[in-house]
């Protein structure tokens, strides 16, 4: 049974839901390899090992123990299927460094490094729209400018 802290370790690698999808897809391929004959089996598992060895090493999971791999993979898939992502709408495509900073800021508050589901929408202009745990918060520049202009409408119109 994989410990929860080890799952959170995975969040450092897979900061966005897109990353986890790729990871889960690679797990599915590796699972297929378990039921293949050599050399097909070796090739698929080697590819997976090459790509995620560091992650699994940090998680203390030995990828060479093929008898346990099916169970590990199954637990990982179940975990990500039930994962509660933080949905962010941004006006720009975020860099890894940026997402890393966000994870660091939020880890102490959330209790673990959150995984982000990022949408890019230039209409937001700037700032962020957050949808998490059933709470919605629009902190986009679009909304802020709308609010500012509406609050100061009379003053702005009188200056026209």
């Amino acid at each position, binding site marked *: 049974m994989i410990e929860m802290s080890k799952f959170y370790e995975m969040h450092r690698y897979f900061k966005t839901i897109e990353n986890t999808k790729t990871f889960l897809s690679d797990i599915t391929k590796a699972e297929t390899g378990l039921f293949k004959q050599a050399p097909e089996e070796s090739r698929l598992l080697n590819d997976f090992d090459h790509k995620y060895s560091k992650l699994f090493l940090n998680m203390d999971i030995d990828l060479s123990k093929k008898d346990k791999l099916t169970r590990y993979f199954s637990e990982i898939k179940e975990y990500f299927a039930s994962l509660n992502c933080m949905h962010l709408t941004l006006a720009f495509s975020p860099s890894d460094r940026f997402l890393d900073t966000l994870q660091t800021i939020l880890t102490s508050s959330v209790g673990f490094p959150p995984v982000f589901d990022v949408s890019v929408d230039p209409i937001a*202009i700037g700032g962020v729209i957050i949808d998490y745990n059933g709470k919605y918060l629009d902190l986009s520049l679009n909304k802020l400018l709308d609010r500012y202009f509406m609050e100061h*409408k009379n003053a702005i119109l009188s200056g026209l």
Partner: protein
Amino acid sequence: MYTLPGNAYIFAIFILFQGFLVLLVLFLFIDKFFSTRKHRLEADLVKQDAFKQALKELGAAKTKAQQIIKDAQISAADIISKSEYISASTQKNLDDGINNLVKRQELEIIKIIDSFNAELKSEFDKERITTLSGFKTIFQEVKDASIKQLSSFNDILTNSSLDAEGSLKAQASEHLEEMRLRLKVYEEAKTKEIQDKLFSVLLAVNKNFFSQTMTIDDHEDLVIKLFRDAALKETLGL
């Protein structure tokens, strides 16, 4: 030889004279009888002609009156149709009003003329008109009165038309005032629309300014600052 006594001559002359007088009176009576009848026949003929002529004149007067009414009606309709500020329903109401007025006045003038006809006939029937000159006098009186009445009626029609025109002008003026009010409301709405449009443009320009001038670093710094905000974390229940 038989000779008459002296008194007998005198008596015979007296008888002959009496016979002559009787014949004379008879002659005069017969003459008078035929003469009166002839005169009456002539007078009757004159009366018939005069009556016909009177009817003809009155008929012409009636036609003229109807023409005046028709002209007034056309004139009123023309005024109504040229009034741009009058709505279709108002125009119809005014049309109906003018038509009713004209119908009432038409009936009035026909009543007046018919009354003259009856009066004229009565004069003939009462034998008050026995000579051509007598008829002419009466007819002239009737004609003068008819013309006077027509003239008076014409004045009524003209005044009515003028009244109608005045009423139309008043209504047009009322509509003009209504149009002014509508225009004012329209101007206010249009000004508001323009202001709203300017406001939207200004907002769009500002949004565009931010989206064009912000670098990726600016974007990232802003979001990081927002996430560092304790209030944000509290709002999200973090």
